């Protein structure tokens, strides 16, 4: 290939990468750091380091209710998206090219629709059919929000799975359900888990649709928003830090799973599946 890049180039590249990282992570760092300070400010100077605001957060029932709502909502919409999305992806894989394209358009359209519009539409819809706003209605809104994302991830995994693996299963005596359990699932579950984690985290910080459909309850984003309107204290920093830790842990776990599997598949396909179409 080419020669080693000149020193100047390398320095330039280094500066650029550093700048990007600072830009990306500085705000995050600020939130985390100042969640540990004593005085009721969001920013510097950093004084009186301690867990003061964490204690306050855990003693605040409004925060804790919102926290529980957020997690339950995310879990419910994740599980439903996982089940229905996997089934949809399997179906679309079998469908012909034209039907598959139609499926793409229909299922991915929600991604291009403004949240405000969707929130309003759902509100109007629930009102029209006479369903009072509740945990149920907001769960529907969240499911509709995370489903297309999960579907994209699930399809990317399932479409790449060579259908010949299922034929091997059929050849060795497995009916379709068994093929799914013993072949498709073991070969794609890391991707499905990855999609589920994505769905979970998308749900935890959804705001606009939640605001329209949740009724009297709250989730963390809603509480934070309300808090800021009244003037804020570092409890929100503490809350945000907890959320950050949860989602980073989930993401790393998911990446670990997916990455391990991808590496193995890549090595296998390098040899055994030469010239495989699709």
């Amino acid at each position, binding site marked *: 290939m080419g020669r080693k890049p000149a020193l100047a180039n390398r320095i330039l590249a280094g500066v650029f990468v550093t700048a990007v990282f600072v830009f990306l992570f500085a705000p995050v760092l600020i939130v985390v750091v100042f969640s540990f300070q004593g005085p009721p400010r969001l920013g510097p100077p950093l004084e009186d380091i301690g867990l003061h605001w964490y204690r306050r957060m855990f003693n605040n029932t409004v925060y804790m209710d919102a926290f529980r709502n957020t997690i339950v909502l995310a879990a419910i919409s994740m599980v439903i998206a996982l089940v229905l999305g996997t089934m949809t992806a399997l179906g679309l894989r079998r469908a012909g090219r034209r039907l598959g394209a139609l499926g793409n358009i229909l299922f991915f359209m929600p991604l291009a629709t403004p949240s405000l519009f969707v929130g309003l539409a759902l509100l109007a819809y629930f009102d029209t059919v006479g369903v009072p706003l509740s945990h149920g209605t907001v769960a529907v809104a969240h499911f509709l929000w995370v489903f297309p994302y999960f579907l994209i991830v699930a399809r990317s995994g399932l479409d790449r799975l*060579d259908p*010949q*693996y299922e*034929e*091997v*299963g*059929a*050849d*060795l*005596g*497995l*009916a379709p359900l*068994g093929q799914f359990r*013993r*072949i498709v699932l*073991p*070969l794609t579950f890391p991707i499905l888990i990855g999609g589920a984690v994505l769905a979970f985290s998308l749900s935890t910080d959804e705001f606009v649709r939640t605001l329209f459909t949740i009724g009297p309850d709250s989730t963390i984003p809603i509480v934070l928003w309300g808090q800021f309107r009244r003037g804020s204290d570092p409890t929100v920093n503490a809350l945000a830090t907890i959320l950050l830790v949860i989602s980073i842990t989930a993401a790393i776990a998911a990446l670990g799973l997916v990455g391990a599997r991808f590496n*193995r*598949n890549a*090595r*296998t396909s*390098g*040899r*055994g*599946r*030469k*010239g*495989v179409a699709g």
Partner: protein
Amino acid sequence: MTQQGSGGRLVVTGVRKRFSQVVALDGVSLDFREGEFVTLLGPSGCGKTTLLRIVAGFDWPDHGTVVLDGQDITRLPPYHRPVNTVFQKPVLLPHLDVFENIAFGLRSRRMPEDSIRKTVTGMLEVVRLAGYERRRSDELSGGQAQRVNLARALVNQPRVLLLDEPLSALDLQVRMEMQAELKRIHRETGVTFLYVTHDQQEAMAMSDRIAVMNEGMIRQSGTPMDVYHAPNCYFVASFVGNANVLPVIVDSDHETGDCVRVADTDVKVRVEDIPEDVRNGWISMRPETLRLTPPDEAGIVGRVTDRSFLGAHVMWRVDVGPHEIRVQGEVGEDGVARSGDLVGIRPDPRWVRFLRD
């Protein structure tokens, strides 16, 4: 592992299959004896894989039936057929090791654990992979992977084993080794083999019977010897081996035996068994059944355009009128004629075949 006579009697009748534009199979019938080794031989795209997939149950034919040991299995799903497949690329399941790949079919039939252990271990002996139980699929060579593939199919004691170009991805050395191995396993298990290849050498070396296919039809089905020396049509003669196939016109007078004239020349060749009422057709002559002679000692005369040394043989190309005839000789005969020489060619009438189409 020896289970003599466990092979199934497979009867394929009038099978047709079309994929939107393409007619992949155009009325295929084939009858297998128990334990027979039958090879489908034909050029790319002639429908070999399609026929195999129909027997396996992955595809259904538009017309025709597949009957195994008297039972119509045409519409039976693959997981209910006593038939197993060795796929072209060794599709080992990447999440399982060698042992579990081979045990897969037994597990889906819920065989007890200790029988599974015994059966799989025995099968590993058969394919000579004892000690490889815990290897993963990416830790095997191509030949080893294909052995696992074979073991995974055979361990289910199928009545018919389908093999779709199982050796085509292997290099020559390993391929020869695996050919011998497959023949041994066929002999020892007695399973009916339906084997697909487009390598004629392989087909000749391994099969009890070869079915030569072209454009979705079986053109000839017979022993390797039959197919090679007694081709029944232009396609088989030219596809199998390297025969000289020349267009001929049948002489009106048959007094001196059946005689044909090669089109656009004065060359006459004696052929046996020309059907009545046939005016023209083809003759097929294998290069190794022809002899070079001095030009005045044979009926066919031409000029040598090329002489090539093929290791064990020498091959001459001789122009006879507008046609080219290849003649094969033994090493040592290579001095007989050189490029530019005028030579005679003497066919052995026993090996000249007349083909009507």
